[in-house]
C-alpha cells in the first residue's frame, strides 16, 4: 500500500466520523422540527414527509395546553435571574483571577471546577429540605439560586479568560491618564469585555433554561417548562411532546450558536 492510499483511507475515516457526529446531532433536531411544524395527524401517521407541512396546529395545541404558558414564563424568569446572578458574582471573580495574585488562587480555581463534581440529585434533597425551612421552596428565586450555582463555574471561567485577554497595560495607561481604578475598568476594560460578558450571560441563561432535575424536585406549582414537560410526558399526546421539545431546544441552540466563539475562547481554542 502506498503512502497516498494510506492517507486517502485515513481521510475517508475522518470524513465518516465527522458525518456520523453531525448525523448524531442533527437528526434528532430535524425530527423535532419536522414534527413540531406538522399537523397532529401527520405526527402520528407514517410514512413521514421530508418537508414539514408548516401546519401550526401542533404549536397552537401546545401553547393552548393548560399550564404551558405559565411554565414558559417561569422558565424565562428563572433563566433571567440566573443570568443576572451568575454574572454579578462570576465576573468579579473572573476579574480577580485574571488580575491579582492572592494566596489560595490555585485552590480557588480548582474549587470553582469542583462544584461541578457533586451530582445534583445528591444535593437536591437536602436543598429541598432547606428551602422548605427558609420558605424558598417552589419559588422562582429559590430555583434561580440553584441554577446560579450550576452556571457560576462557567461564568467565572469564561470571564477569567476574557479579562486575561485584555492587557493590564491598557488599565495602567488609563490610570496615568487621570482615571481611578473604577473609571479605568468602566472606560477601558468593560467596553472591551462587554461582548464576551454578554456571551457568558447567555450561556448561564441556557444552562438554567435546559436544567430539569432541580426544577422538577424543587418546584410544584411554579414548574419551569422542562419540569412541566417531564411531568406530563407520558400522559401528553405526541404532538405536544414534539412542540414542547422544539420550544426548549430552539432558543438554547440559537443562543449558543450566536455566542460560540466566546465559549471556544473559554477552552483556549480561539480568541477572537
Amino acid at each position: 500500500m502506498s503512502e497516498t492510499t494510506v492517507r486517502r483511507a485515513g481521510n475517508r475515516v475522518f470524513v465518516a466520523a465527522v458525518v456520523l457526529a453531525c448525523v448524531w446531532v442533527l437528526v434528532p433536531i430535524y425530527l423535532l422540527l419536522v414534527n413540531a411544524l406538522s399537523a397532529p395527524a401527520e405526527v402520528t401517521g407514517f410514512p413521514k414527509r421530508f418537508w414539514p407541512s408548516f401546519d401550526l396546529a401542533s404549536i397552537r395545541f401546545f401553547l393552548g395546553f393548560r399550564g404551558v404558558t405559565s411554565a414558559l414564563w417561569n422558565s424565562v424568569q428563572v433563566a433571567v435571574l440566573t443570568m443576572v446572578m451568575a454574572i454579578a458574582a462570576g465576573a468579579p471573580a473572573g476579574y480577580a483571577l485574571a488580575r491579582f495574585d492572592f494566596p489560595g488562587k490555585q485552590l480557588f480555581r480548582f474549587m470553582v471546577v469542583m462544584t461541578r463534581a457533586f451530582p445534583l440529585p445528591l444535593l437536591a434533597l437536602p436543598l429541598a429540605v432547606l428551602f422548605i425551612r427558609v420558605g424558598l421552596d417552589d419559588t422562582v428565586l429559590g430555583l434561580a439560586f440553584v441554577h446560579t450555582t450550576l452556571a457560576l463555574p462557567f461564568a467565572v471561567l469564561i470571564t477569567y479568560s476574557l479579562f486575561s485577554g485584555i492587557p493590564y497595560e491598557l488599565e495602567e495607561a488609563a490610570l496615568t491618564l487621570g482615571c481611578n481604578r473604577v473609571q479605568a475598568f468602566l472606560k477601558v476594560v468593560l467596553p472591551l469585555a462587554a461582548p464576551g460578558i454578554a456571551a457568558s450571560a447567555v450561556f448561564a441563561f441556557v444552562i438554567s433554561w435546559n436544567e430539569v432535575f432541580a426544577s422538577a424536585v424543587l418546584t410544584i406549582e411554579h414548574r419551569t417548562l422542562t419540569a412541566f414537560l417531564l411531568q406530563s410526558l407520558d400522559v401528553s399526546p405526541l404532538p405536544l411532546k414534539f412542540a414542547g421539545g422544539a420550544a426548549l431546544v430552539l432558543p438554547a441552540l440559537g443562543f449558543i450558536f450566536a455566542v460560540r466563539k466566546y465559549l471556544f475562547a473559554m477552552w483556549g481554542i480561539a480568541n477572537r
Partner: protein
Amino acid sequence: MAEIEIKGVAKVFGAFTALHSIDLTISDREFVVLLGASGCGKTTLLRIIAGLDSPTKGEVWIGGRRVDMLPPRERGISMVFQNYAVFPHLTVFENIAFGLRMQRLAQAEVTRRVTRTAEIMHIEGLLKRYSGQLSGGQRQRVAVARALAMEPDVILMDEPLSNLDALLRLEMRAELKGVLAASKTTTIYVTHDQVEAMSLADRIAVMHGGDIVQAAPPVEVYRNPAARFVGSFIGNPPMNFLPAAAAGEGCWQVAGLTFDGPRADLPQIEFAIRPEDLHPADHGFLAEVRVVEPLGPHILVTATVAGVVLRAVLDSTLALAPGDHITLSPVSDRIRWFDLNTQKAIA
C-alpha cells in the same frame, strides 16, 4: 518646574529585592535615561515614579511635592508604555483626547490640543482610525501624542522603541529627541539599548542588580566608568580588562609592561582600556591575533595577551590574519584602574 527627587527608594518582591536603596535627583527639563540589562530594576523604578507600583521604602518627590502615596493621576505625569497601550475600542482622536476628557476640558480645547499634538507626531491623517488599522510605528506615535497632549510636568517612557524595527527605531529616536526637547518636560526614559541611551540622554543612570552604579552625562559614563560593570556594559565592543600586579610605589605590572598607576595598597586591581584606545606600536602588549572582523572603516581584532582575551578596533588598512603577532600600545591618558574587591574605579 518639575524636579524629581528619589530618596532611598527600595522595592522587595517576596524574597527578591528589585531595588536596594535608590537616590537620584533629576532637574527640571532634564532628560535622564535609566539604562541596564533586563532584571536590573529600571522598569520597577520607573513604575514607582509613575505610581503603578509602590516602594517598600523611601520617598518620591515631584516638583517639591511628596507623591509616593498618591495615585498616578495626581502626580502630573504621563507615561508611554512598551506595548503602546493604545485603547483598541477608541479612535486615534479619542485616544489622544482620553486624558483631556478625564480633566473635563472644554471640547474646543480638547480639539485644539489633539490637533496640535497629532501634528507634532505627524499623525493628523489618522485621527479617525482605530488602533487595529495602524502599524506599530503609527501606534507608537499615538502613544507619544497621547502623553504629550496631557501637557505633563514629567513624561515617563518604558522602552518605547524596543518593539520597532531597526530603521524605524533610528528615525523615531531622532524625532523623539526633538519633540521632547521642544515640550520642555522632564523626561525619564528606560532602555536596555546603550546607543539609544547615549544619543538621547542629558544624563545616563546605569543600573545593575537593583542599584544605580553611575549617573553621569553620556560621554562621562563612556570615558570614566565609575564601576567595572559600567565599562563592561557600555561600549561595543566593551572595555578590556587585564589583571595588574604591584611593582613598587605607584607602579603596576600588566602583561609584562609596567605602568604608573594608583598609589594605593590594594591586593587586587585591574587595568582597563577601551578597544579603540589601543594602537599598533613598537613598544606595547604582545598580542596573538585570533579573529579579524572587518567593520568597514575599522577592523575589530580579537587577540590574546598573556592568556587574556583583548579586543582592539584598528584601522582597516592594517593587513592582519589569525595567528599573526602584533604589538599594541594603550593611549596613556585613557587607561583606567578598577579595584577588584569593590568593583569600583580607582581615582
